[in-house]
């Protein structure tokens, strides 16, 4: 069941195109920084690690992750999540799945796992493509962390992949919101739009100083936590907070998804 759901997600041409386009971003970013800028970017600004791209291959995927985490990744995850139940409801295959041996609970769980796997695939894709492009365009010697400590290139690659996992997991809340909304409607577009809106609203609220008190409960509050992997020693606190935040949001919307789906009338 879970394998079939993965096939459904990864065989869809549209989903593959999204993955492909996202894989292009680190390549373009690398090419632009390598050939179009003079003397490298200076003076801050831009996403995290942007200034360090030219120094080491490892920083290209990180800069790509940092620049895509705020909009492109949540959007891509929302598209798949919004489609997870609503898409099948709209094309009618949902009712034919549910009149078989599988319980509704198993169906929704398979869909949740498949959407989460796709979310992780998105961020890992950025990291892997970014590492390859970075290795071709930029030097790959020892990596200097934010604390000024040198680590081996392989160690740096490992930390970049770990950062990709953390970034992917940071989007899980958005994915889960998308799935939960998807259980209410036959319109994938509506579910996707609502999930993206929740993500953007969270980022907007996070930027308002007067709302500092509610920041800890916003799903995007710790999105930049993956940067702390590149300190020496790794500062795990913010990463744990990020994961805990995601777990909290996931738990609530997981309950909504599972209970709404298993108790509602399927009229589509």
């Amino acid at each position, binding site marked *: 069941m879970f394998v079939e759901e993965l096939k459904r997600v990864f065989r869809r041409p549209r989903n593959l195109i999204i993955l492909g386009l996202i894989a292009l971003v680190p390549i373009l970013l690398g090419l632009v920084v390598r050939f179009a800028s003079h003397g490298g970017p200076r003076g801050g600004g831009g996403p995290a690690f942007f200034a360090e791209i030219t120094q080491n291959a490892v920083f290209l995927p990180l800069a790509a992750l940092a620049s895509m985490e705020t909009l492109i990744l949540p959007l891509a995850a929302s598209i798949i999540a919004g489609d997870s139940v609503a898409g099948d409801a709209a094309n009618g295959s949902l009712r034919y799945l549910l009149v078989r041996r599988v319980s509704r609970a198993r169906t929704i769980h398979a869909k949740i796992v498949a959407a989460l796997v796709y979310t992780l695939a998105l961020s890992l894709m950025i990291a892997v493509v970014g590492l390859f492009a970075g290795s071709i365009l930029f030097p790959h010697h020892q990596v200097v962390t934010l604390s000024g400590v040198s680590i081996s290139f392989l160690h740096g690659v490992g930390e970049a992949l770990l950062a990709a996992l953390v970034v992917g997991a940071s989007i899980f809340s958005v994915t889960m919101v998308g799935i939960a909304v998807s259980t209410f409607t036959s319109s994938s577009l509506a579910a996707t739009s609502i999930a993206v809106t929740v993500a953007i609203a969270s980022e907007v609220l996070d930027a308002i100083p*007067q709302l500092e008190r509610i920041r800890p409960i916003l799903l995007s509050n710790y999105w930049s936590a993956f940067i702390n992997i590149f300190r020496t020693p790794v500062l795990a606190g913010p990463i744990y907070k990020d994961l805990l935040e995601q777990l909290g949001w996931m738990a609530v919307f997981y309950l909504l998804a599972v209970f709404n789906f298993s108790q509602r009338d399927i009229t589509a």
Partner: protein
Amino acid sequence: MARWKYRFGIPLVGAAVALGAASLTPALTNAQTPLLQPMSASQLIAAVMGAAPVQYTGQLQITSNLLGSDASLLSNVGQGLALPEGTSQVMVYRGAGANLRLQEINAQSERDLYVTSSGAWLWNSAGSSAEHVEFGSSTQQSSSLQQMNPTEMADALVGRLAPTSNVTVGANTYVAGHAAYTLSLAPRQSGSTISSLRVFVDAKNYHVLAVTVNSVYSSSPVLQVGYQTITFASPSLSNFSFTPPAGTAVKTVTEAQLQSMFEPTNPGTKPVTLGTSWQTVVELPKTALSQLSASVGAKGLAELETPVTLTNGETAESIHTELVNLLVLPTGSVLAGAVRSSVLESDAGALGL
């Protein structure tokens, strides 16, 4: 119809539990009061002074709320000041002997101070620059303070403070999960903007865990320096060693240069003080205003100023913050202190204005 309970009721309960956990967890730990061996203020001060050095790893949080409600309007102002408005995080690693590492955590960068017995490194990840200080062989740690008996010192200190301040041991609390005594200093005199100073002391090893400064203008502390987490164990030695990465611009500073950096440039001009103890006010020369104006920006400064009529009928500009008040006199000099504006105005009167 009962199904609606499951579809929305259970997720709603889940949301309530999650929100409750998010908001209550910090409140619950703060609300608890540990039962500790009662101590007098001088006993506590003596214990702090006599405490053996400890090794630890801690996350220090510095929160300043000096501008109060003006902060959001003047978010650009804080950046120019020496004490940043808002919150900053510093990881502190304290090892054996001189070993110390301070790691200032910024969103996308960090600054580090690595100290060992042989020298110190200051690293700034933005721009990849490092400064290096090599320590001489002379051990300069022999301070005369440590020769004295902590109990006598504490008694002397409390005796000196007694006429002007209430020194008390407040309700016990938890700081960063550790049971702590609260040492509270409050002015006996009126007119100070400081309502109290609180020092939170670990009940096991008498290490200071947090300090807060409370203002008469605000119910929450205006200045808060404290550990969010602290673990009393010796940190790994790798935390203290630093080798500048290849390609780093290293600037070497000698010990003598370092000392001269901390000496006042012209020790002759001592600032004039008015009042005593909690009511102490400093009269700053005319140059102070231009320095302030340069760091805050003339426009930002103008936004903070309020005109005040002095006893002699002339107009001065008052600048109010949650902790410090300033009075810019018509002569151009500035009165500053952690006192209410009325104290500044009467001091101005004493100066003949």
